[in-house]
């Protein structure tokens, strides 16, 4: 089990950036119980999940707060956890081009230095909260790049929420850098433009006690109206890591993973 903290210069962000990368390889259980050979395949690559953090978080959050490494090892899946500040995974109005970085530069860079596939059929994307919105935004904007996308407690329709602390406490000057004069840009708006026949299937799950739950209900309803391929689950829970650690497993079980090197 290779747990890699990668730091490199991103030409798009014009600065160094950190990425947490998990690459399956032998772990204690494989050694103890003799399943080492599945990782010794020369010239093979791994399917990959781009796993996005929420607002106020960064590239360390998923590996610190969940057991994503265990789940990914079971699925023989590489996991790439980048940082995107509070950009909502957009190309900022005045700031870094996080959307292009994650959709384009990062996969190409990783393919050059690590055994990670960039083929659509091997590329998955998911995230929580702002990152759930981000995952759907990537899938809807670059449907040719991802095989499937999932949102956990996603910020999918922020405009419907009243008194959202996550938005209210965000520094105003940062929000201006992301959105310019707009207050924000909602993922749900993208549903007006998409062609459903080319979309990767979407999976969304949200806690029924989560403050962001109404935004998920609203998104799902509109996605159904637009005949988008979407699966929606709800479960008891709030906006917290207990929920995400439990339900990222549902996401991985839903995704059509090969569970072996490719």
């Amino acid at each position, binding site marked *: *089990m290779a747990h*890699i*903290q*990668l*730091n490199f210069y991103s*030409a798009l962000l014009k600065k160094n950036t950190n990425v947490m990368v998990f690459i399956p390889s032998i772990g204690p259980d494989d050694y103890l119980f003799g399943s080492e050979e599945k990782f*010794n395949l020369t010239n093979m690559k791994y399917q990959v999940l781009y796993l996005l953090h929420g607002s106020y978080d960064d590239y360390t959050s998923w590996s610190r707060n969940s057991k994503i490494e265990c789940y990914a090892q079971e699925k023989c899946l590489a996991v790439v956890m980048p940082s995107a500040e509070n950009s909502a995974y957009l190309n900022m109005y005045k700031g870094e081009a996080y959307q292009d970085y994650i959709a384009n530069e990062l996969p190409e860079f990783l393919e*050059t*230095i690590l055994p990670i596939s960039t083929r659509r059929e091997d590329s998955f994307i998911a995230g929580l909260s702002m990152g759930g919105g981000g995952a759907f935004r990537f899938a809807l904007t670059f449907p040719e790049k991802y095989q499937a996308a999932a949102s956990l407690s996603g910020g999918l329709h922020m405009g419907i929420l009243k008194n959202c602390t996550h938005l209210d406490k965000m520094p105003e000057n940062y929000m201006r850098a992301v959105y310019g004069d707009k207050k924000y840009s909602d993922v749900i708006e993208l549903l007006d433009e998409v062609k459903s026949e080319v979309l990767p299937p979407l999976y969304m799950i949200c806690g029924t006690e989560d403050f962001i739950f109404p935004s998920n209900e609203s998104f799902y309803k509109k996605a159904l109206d637009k005949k988008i391929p979407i699966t929606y689950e709800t479960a008891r829970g709030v906006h917290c890591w207990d929920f995400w650690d439990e339900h990222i497993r549902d996401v991985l079980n839903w995704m059509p993973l090969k569970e072996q090197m490719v």
Partner: protein
Amino acid sequence: MALLQCNLFSGTLCFGTDINVIIPSPDSDDILHKKNISYFHKGVKFPVLYLLHGAYGDYSDWLRLSKIEAYANEHKMIVIMPSASNSFYQDMEYGSDYETYMTEELPAFAQQMFPMLTDREHTFIGGLSMGGYGALKLAFDNPDKYGACISLSGALDIQGVYEDIREGRMEAPFLWDAIFSDPERIQGSDKDLFELYKIGGEQGCIMPRIFQSCGTEDFIYHSNLGARDRLMEMGADLTYEEHPGIHDWNYWDANIGRAMEWLIYN
């Protein structure tokens, strides 16, 4: 350049262990000075230098105390820095199989993970002090795997080092009887670099090229001169350098850069 701090499970050591890995890639310096960055592309493969720490050290030393990242990017070389505790890079009598980890498991892992050339002509190993000995030991044991090796201020005459420490002339953390089955009889054994070099020659192996450097004020300087002479007598392809300096990071930082230049241009 890309820095990868990687934690992996080693089936040889039977515990998790860390490596630092530098992979050349375009950086701010390349942008500012409009350098050619076309070398970095999908499918690129770099030469690789395994770089070993000294006594008391670990995988983080080279990165923290030298400009190894800059040299790696300049010379377009992957650098892999593992940890081996105070083992002298041996399969220990009481302890862990660090030589096996370094020469078999780690290269297999790295070749699968990172974009590196795998032939002996592009595979190098170097180190400082204990790691200087380690680099030559592992290279002489595996002349088919390493094209060249580097010793900076290396503890090359391990019998002499053992005696110096036993007699209290040198400070060291080594548990000699944990590392070696019989520390009194290292000379002439398969832990003795000179014996290993001789055996390799007798077996007709093409032995790795050697770059050896030591500071003239280093406590291990005279021992290095002796080691140089003995290797040269056996016909070693050895480049020797000495510069004013002691057993410290000023010396190793300045001279690992020179050694890497030598790797590339010789």
